[in-house]
């Protein structure tokens, strides 16, 4: 007679990438892409540094936001003592463990602060009363201190949770889960505050006269949709690649799909609320940011976001069957990932190209470079670790999970 415990326990070899598996090559492929992208950035960027800094900022924000979304996902799993998601938690942990890499990739931007942020250009505040008034916050030294603080705090939380979870694979100590659970609540508050200020610093201050009190939560909503979209794609890709085939079930895909559906609606709620209040109040010091995005070809992008980041995926993901089939769920996830990129592009790029959408080869080069580093770092960690938290006390519950 097989006991309940033996039946559900996972053998480590069921949850690792076997030798010779194609996914073992991902770190090399990622590193090659990163190198290629970096060379392309260096060649193309030398001729057009301003475009390079903006393209690099969009790509960095894209992958960093996925990592921050992953951090929030894992923190709420701990705080709510969620059972279902244990089998996909390691994917989130691997994604947010790349935050220190993102901190390094942030450094090139420091060379172009004056190109990116008009308030950082020398003498910018001289003839601008508003910038003079904002200078105690918007000045280069304080900006750098804050950036260091954000990456320091995020890396600290990320490594605390990553190492805690990896350590539990070895020790099997259930007290580690309890400890991380107790820390999750405060960590969520710290993450919310730092993410808000980071979005204000890095995106909102591109238009230093503009302000929106909802901007932080807008950035958060996008980052969380982005990570869940990535999670759906990775979970399905893993199953297709023969990894965790028997571990991640239809039931888990269904729950990922529910998250994706719910936070697509949440993003739309926040995005519309931000637009709606500014549109209704009609104050010139607030409306110019949207006016720039509702003229010329940027208007097409705005409409694309409305339909593509909300309308279409909302109805697409509504049904049950779509969420329970790997191919249809991953299609929705891939689409929303693309839309998350468009969303960030739409937030950043009109500062550089107010005349209209001007796609650049540097956009591609920066994406390949940052994305290559991201994939290389995440897949390198995946090779060295179990793909699920093997000895989490709730693993059995997660493996047996069924939607009602």
């Amino acid at each position, binding site marked *: 007679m097989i006991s309940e415990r033996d039946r559900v326990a996972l053998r480590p070899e069921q949850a690792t990438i076997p030798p010779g598996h194609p996914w073992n090559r991902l770190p090399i492929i990622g590193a090659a892409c990163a190198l290629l992208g970096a060379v392309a950035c260096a060649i193309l960027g030398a001729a057009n540094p301003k475009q390079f800094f903006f393209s690099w900022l969009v790509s960095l924000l894209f992958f960093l936001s996925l990592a921050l979304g992953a951090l929030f996902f894992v923190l709420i799993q701990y705080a709510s003592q969620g059972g279902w998601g244990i089998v996909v938690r390691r994917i989130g942990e691997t994604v947010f463990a790349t935050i220190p890499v993102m901190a390094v990739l942030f450094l090139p931007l420091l060379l172009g602060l004056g190109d990116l942020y008009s308030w950082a250009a020398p003498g910018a505040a001289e003839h601008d009363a508003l910038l003079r008034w904002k200078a105690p916050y918007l000045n280069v030294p304080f900006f750098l201190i804050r950036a260091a603080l954000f990456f320091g705090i995020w890396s600290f939380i990320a490594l605390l949770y990553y190492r805690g979870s990896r350590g539990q694979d070895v020790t099997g100590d259930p007290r580690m889960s309890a400890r991380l659970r107790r820390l999750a609540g405060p960590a969520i508050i710290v993450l919310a505050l730092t993410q808000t200020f980071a979005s204000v610093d890095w995106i909102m201050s591109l238009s230093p006269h503009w302000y929106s009190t909802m901007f932080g939560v807008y950035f958060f909503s996008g980052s969380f949709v982005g990570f869940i979209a990535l999670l759906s794609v990775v979970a399905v890709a893993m199953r297709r690649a023969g990894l965790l085939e028997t571990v991640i079930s239809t039931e888990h895909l269904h729950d990922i799909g529910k998250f994706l559906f719910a936070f697509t609606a949440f993003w739309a709620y926040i995005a*519309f609320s931000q*637009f*709606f209040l500014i*549109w*209704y109040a*009609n104050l010139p010091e607030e409306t110019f940011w949207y006016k720039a995005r509702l003229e010329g070809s940027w208007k097409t992008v705005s409409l694309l976001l409305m339909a593509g980041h909300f309308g279409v995926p909302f109805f697409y993901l*509504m049904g*049950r069957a779509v969420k329970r089939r790997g191919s249809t769920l991953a299609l929705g996830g891939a689409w929303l990932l693309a839309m998350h990129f468009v969303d960030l592009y739409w937030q950043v790029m009109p500062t550089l190209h107010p005349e209209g959408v001007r796609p650049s080869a540097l956009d591609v080069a920066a994406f390949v470079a940052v994305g290559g580093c991201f994939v290389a770092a995440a897949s390198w960690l995946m090779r060295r670790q179990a793909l699920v938290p093997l000895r989490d006390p709730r693993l059995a519950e997660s493996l047996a999970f069924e939607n009602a």
Partner: protein
Amino acid sequence: MPLLLPQLPKGPYYGVLAEFATPGDLYHACERVRDAGFTRWDAHTPFPVHGLEGAMGIRRSPLPWIVLITGLTGAAFGFGLQWWVHASAYPLVISGKPYFSWPAFIPITFELGVLFAALGAVLGMLGLNRLPMHYHPLFRSKVFERVTDNAFFISIESWDPRFDPSATRKLLESLGARSVELLES
């Protein structure tokens, strides 16, 4: 008012009621009743029995479709009403905006969509469950009083095409029922 007071089909019998001793007995009996091809029957337990809907072969409820349709109706109604009022019936200039300013209509559209969807969910659930029903023939049974306490039941209704008073009783007895009784309408 047939909609508000649903009626059971007419017939001399309501059906048969079988009592089982344990959730396990009930579960396996349900699988057999399902496999025998019965469609108009139900299981009654004092607490939810995990997986019983699978053992009974219950198909998914059409309720999500009702909610979707009522929700979209509500949203369309909310949007249409504002359009009609602001652009046609009673046009007023509000903060210098065009009569048809669709962003201003979104909150009401959203709220009415949610309201209609919620009403659709509640009323649809009641309708699909044929509620409110103030009296049910199962209440004639003395043993059925223990359904909220410690007893597990299967009831097969007489208007099921496969129902036969004596054969159905025998089937339930063969499945290990502790007692089987024929209930009048």
